[in-house]
C-alpha cells in the first residue's frame, strides 16, 4: 500500500492528460488502492503505474475517491509485457510496449469499454494506434454516447468522438463543422425573415427563407413596374427635397477634422447640386407642413454673406461611429469645402432630436 501511495504521489506531478475525467482518475485510484498486491515488487517506474492505472480505470466503476490523481498514460516507457501480465486485472489487457499511443476513451458508457477491452483480452496491441482508435470509435459510435473531444497524450491528432449515426473520417468532420457554422448564421436570418421563429428544423427554415426572398424579389419587380407606370405623375420637387438636407456641421476654416469627415451623413450625389443651388437658386422655406416642425431658412449666399440654416429641434441629427455600411460613402462627399464654408451653420447648438429615446449623447 505504501508502494501505492508512493506511486500515486509520483503520478500527481507527472500527469499530463488534462482530459481525464474525474471518474477515470477515481477509478484508477481505486484500482491502485484495491489491488496493491498486483504490483510487482520490482521498482516500477512511475510510468508503469500510470499505465496500469489507465488499464485499471475500466474495472473500477462507480467508486468515488479523491481525484487528486492525474495519471500519465505514457505507457510506452519501458513497459514490459511480463509486468503487464502480472498486473492483469479483470480486463486482462496487455499492452504493447511499443504501442506509443493509446487512446483514452472518455465517455460515459464505461461498461462498453470494459467489454471492448475484454474483447481484446490477451491480445497485444500490435495494431497501430489507429486500429484501436477505430475499434473504440466503432464500438462506441453504436453506443449511446455523447460527443466529446479527447486530447491524446501526443499532440499529433485529436480524436473526436463520433456522434451517433455519423461517420468519423475527416471529410465528414469538416462537413459537420461547416454545417454548424451555417446553423449559427441562420439564427440571424431567423430574425429577419418573419415567421421563421416558429419553425424548428433547419430545412424548414431554409425553405421559408427561400420563399421569402423570392417573394421579395417579385414584389420589387412588380413595384418597379408600377413605378414606371406612375412615373409621369411623380413630382418630387427635387430642389426642395435636397434643400431639406440640412447639415449643421460647422466646417472649421482650416478644414474638416477627420472625425467629422463622415460625409455619408452630409451629402450624396446632390451635394453639388445643393451647393450650386445655394448660389441663389434655393430660397425657400421648404414646403414643410407645420407638424413636421422643420424650419429652414436658406438664404442665397453672396460671397460675403453667410446663409444661416436653423434647425428646429424636431430634426434629428446623428453621427455614427463607423459602421460596415459606410463603404464608399466618402465618395459621396462632393462638397467643396471652401464653398461649404460659405454655407454657414447655426450658431446655436442643436437642441433636440426626434428619436431621443434611441440615442445616447456623448460629449
Amino acid at each position, binding site marked *: 500500500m505504501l508502494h501505492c501511495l508512493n506511486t500515486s504521489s509520483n503520478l500527481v506531478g507527472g500527469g499530463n492528460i488534462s482530459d481525464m475525467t474525474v471518474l477515470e482518475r477515481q477509478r484508477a485510484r481505486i484500482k491502485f488502492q484495491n489491488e496493491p498486491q498486483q504490483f510487482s515488487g520490482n521498482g516500477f517506474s512511475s510510468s508503469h503505474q500510470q499505465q496500469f492505472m489507465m488499464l485499471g480505470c475500466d474495472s473500477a466503476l462507480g467508486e468515488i475517491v479523491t481525484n487528486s490523481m492525474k495519471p500519465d498514460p505514457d505507457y510506452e516507457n519501458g513497459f514490459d509485457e511480463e509486468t503487464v501480465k502480472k498486473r492483469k486485472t479483470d480486463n486482462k489487457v496487455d499492452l504493447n510496449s511499443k504501442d506509443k499511443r493509446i487512446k483514452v476513451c472518455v465517455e460515459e458508457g464505461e461498461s462498453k469499454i470494459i467489454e471492448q477491452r475484454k474483447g481484446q483480452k490477451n491480445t497485444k496491441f500490435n495494431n497501430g494506434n489507429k486500429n484501436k482508435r477505430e475499434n473504440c470509435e466503432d464500438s462506441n459510435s453504436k453506443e449511446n454516447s455523447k460527443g466529446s473531444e479527447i486530447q491524446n497524450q501526443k499532440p499529433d491528432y485529436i480524436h473526436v468522438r463520433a456522434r451517433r449515426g455519423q461517420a468519423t473520417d475527416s471529410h465528414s468532420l469538416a462537413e459537420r463543422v*461547416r454545417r454548424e*457554422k*451555417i446553423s449559427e448564421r441562420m439564427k440571424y436570418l431567423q430574425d429577419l425573415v418573419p415567421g421563421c421563429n416558429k419553425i424548428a428544423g433547419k430545412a424548414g427554415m431554409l425553405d421559408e427563407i427561400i*420563399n421569402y426572398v423570392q417573394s421579395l424579389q417579385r414584389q420589387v419587380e412588380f413595384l418597379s413596374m408600377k413605378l*414606371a407606370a406612375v412615373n409621369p405623375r411623380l413630382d418630387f420637387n427635387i430642389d426642395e427635397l435636397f434643400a431639406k438636407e440640412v447639415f*449643421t456641421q460647422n466646417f472649421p476654416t482650416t478644414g474638416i477634422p477627420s472625425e467629422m469627415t463622415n460625409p455619408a451623413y452630409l451629402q450624396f450625389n446632390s451635394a453639388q447640386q445643393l451647393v450650386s443651388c445655394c448660389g441663389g437658386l434655393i430660397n425657400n422655406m421648404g414646403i414643410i407642413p407645420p407638424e413636421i416642425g422643420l424650419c429652414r431658412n436658406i438664404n442665397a449666399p453672396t460671397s460675403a454673406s453667410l446663409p444661416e440654416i436653423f434647425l428646429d429641434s424636431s430634426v434629428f*441629427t446623428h453621427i455614427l461611429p463607423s459602421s460596415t455600411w459606410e*463603404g464608399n460613402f466618402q465618395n459621396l462627399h462632393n462638397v467643396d469645402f471652401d464653398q461649404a464654408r460659405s454655407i454657414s451653420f447655426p450658431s446655436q447648438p442643436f437642441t433636440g432630436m426626434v428619436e431621443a429615446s434611441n*440615442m445616447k449623447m456623448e460629449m
Partner: protein
Amino acid sequence: MEGQQNKRKRVYSVEPNKVMQAKFSRNYINYLAPALMKIKERRSSIEAKNVENVVKYEVDMAMVFSSQGFAWSNALKLKLQKDGGEGSSRINYQQNDMGPLDFSKKNCSKFEASKILEEKKLVEENEIVDDQLRCLRKLIPGGEEIMCDEQMVSELESYVSCLQMQRSILSSLSYSPSKFVVCATLSSYWIVAGTLYK
C-alpha cells in the same frame, strides 16, 4: 456661450439597425428620385417598353448604390453594367420559375429508434439543406461566385434586409408619391449631428 468652445457631441443610437436602415433609405431615395425625374422628363423619347426596363435598371442601381460593400451588391453592379438597360438584370428573378419551393420534410419517422433510419434521415436532411443552399445561391446576385456557404448565408442577411427596405421604399413611392416627400424627410433622412463649433 457653449458654442464657442470646440466641443463635439457624439450621438450614438442604441438601435444601430435603425440608423443603418435610415442610411440605406436615404441613399436609395437620393439616387432614385432624380433618376426617376430624369426618366419622367425623357419619357417621350423612350419607347414605352423600355421605360420599364430603365426604371428597373435604376431601381437596381439605387440598390447597389445604397448598399455598397457587400459581395452581392458588387455582383449586382457588375451585372447591371454588363447587361445595362436591357432588362436582363431581371433574369435573375424570372428564371426562378420554381414556384414556391417545397422541401417539405420527408416522412422521417422519428419514432423508430433504429440507427440505420436515423442515419438515413440525417443524410437526407443534409441533402435537403444542400439543395436549399444551392437554391439560395441562385437567388442572391453573385451567389455563384461566393465560395463558401457560410459567407453566402451572411451575405444573405444583408441582402434580405436591403430587399425589405427597397420594397417598402418602392411601395411608398408607387402608391402615394405625394406623401412620399413628407414621409421621407421624417423617417429616412439622417443628418449629421456633430456640432463642431469654432
